């Protein structure tokens, strides 16, 4: 599988990272060289192997479905680049 320049633009869009048009060829080359190296995994016979979901076997911890934390909106918005009262400010999304 090889990444072309259109794929670089599509992946950048999915990742919400603006990419300069002049950087697209370089990124395509870099991604291809990494993906090419990764492709050696195709040599491994994985038939009948389950994907790993946890490195340490243990019963998943559960907790009561209760509110145990919160009620400090000022702390939540304290680091926001823009906020008003306890709301984050973003560019207009609804006309």
């Amino acid at each position, binding site marked *: *599988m090889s*990444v072309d320049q259109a*794929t*670089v633009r599509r*992946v*950048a869009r*999915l*990742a*919400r*990272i*603006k*990419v300069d048009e002049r950087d697209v060829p370089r*990124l395509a080359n*870099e*991604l291809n*060289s*990494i*993906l090419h*190296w*990764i*492709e*050696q*995994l*195709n*040599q*491994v016979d*994985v038939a009948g*192997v*389950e*994907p*790993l*979901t946890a*490195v*340490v076997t*243990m019963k*998943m*911890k559960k*907790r009561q479905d209760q509110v145990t934390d919160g009620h*400090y909106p000022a*702390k939540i*918005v*304290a*680091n*926001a*680049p*823009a906020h008003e009262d306890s709301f*984050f400010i*973003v*560019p*207009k*999304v609804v006309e």
Partner: protein
Amino acid sequence: MTSLTSLTIATARDGLRARKFSAVELTEAYVAAIGKARILNAYIVETPDKARAMAKASDVRLAKAKGGPLEGIPLGIKDLFATEGIHTQAASHVLDGFKPTYESTVTANLWRDGAVMLGKLNMDEFAMGSSNETSYYGNVINPWKRKGSNAALVPGGSSGGSATAVAAHICAAATATDTGGSIRQPAAFTGTVGIKPTYGRCSRWGIVAFASSLDQAGPIARDVRDAAIMLKSMASVDPKDTTSVDMAVPDYEQAVGRPIKGLRVGIPKEYRVDPMPAEIDALWAKGAAWLKEQGAEIVDISLPHTKYALPAYYIVAPAEASSNLARYDGVRYGLRVPGDDIVAMYENSRAAGFGAEVKRRIMIGTYVLSAGYYDAYYVRAQKVRTLIKRDFDRAWSKVDVVLTPATPSPAFAPGEITDPVQMYLNDIFTVTVNMAGLPGISVPAGLSSDGLPLGLQLIGKPFGEESLFQVASAIERAAGVFQAPQWW
């Protein structure tokens, strides 16, 4: 009297308890040493006032003989750990100005035990790197130099600031994190001891996430005993991290110096990579010989899927990173670069905020998780991971620990490795441990032909940290400790 900054944690602890010197004197000695070592660029932020206040409080507790296990010990904290009210940016521009309103569990454990914070340590951006060249705050310099050369070398990464600060004696020990080798590789490059514990031993709560199924915190320290003292305090069972394992934390220091007679040490043939540098091979053989002389049994073993660990890692880690780093969007914290609409604002903020290596990994991760590729990449990589873990599970019926080199080379120069895949190969011996969730320790074992430190790695069974401290102290006993000459 020897300078206070030359004392290990164990010696300083004894001196403080015997009131030979005060915690404030010890902290002042470190604050002065940090001021003289700024050329190393190990600290992003120094917190001398906070350090003095904490040391003062330590002296009060010490006077009442109520000191904790780390009472008055000055530490450096990797910039990945959230510290309340203090710069926490994962060495990234995207987190500009972020000051958490909460404290990470690991650092809270350290302060509970009496430790003193000297400041926040430099690192590769979001812990993505093996040379500390990806930090927004510039390269960290290794205190070690090649024999007869004045050229700067990298300290390794991503915990490069932690490793340099410990090696240069500008903190007594440091916190670090390890996703693919980020504790053990810089420890090996700087002649220090670094341990990545079993996944689930330290809480990940309040540590900036990179790859959640691989990330673990651990210490970098000057010797094996200090690493054991640090891990005892850092580790805990934490209800705030559901992957934190319900198991009491042992007194690791008790394992240091314990005889290794009869212990079985595995030598995995697949770690003899092609080409294998002669001095790395020789160091590995020397390590095995030291352990044999002390009564251990050396057993040849096979871990057949070793070579696939690194390529599988470069699917799993970027995939998890692309999800974890989606939160940096210019809305809730950090950098915001305006755009015509909200999507343009996200795209501009992330383009300006992330460095080249982080963008590369987010894009790889986004690609391997995108529609149509998920099974071919991510699911296959997780299957390979099962095979890697199975290799180790089988080995544990034959051996108690596994001995390998820590890195394929000593420290290199900044700019020497520019190809991403070549840089990734630095973690070839360390990454299997993260993929299988096992504990691994890097311990200094000798010097290269040009006078740079080299490390050996010991890999343990799940929650076998005590065996690692036991065997690492046997290597340390044979090899000695290594101190960089002070040139700054």
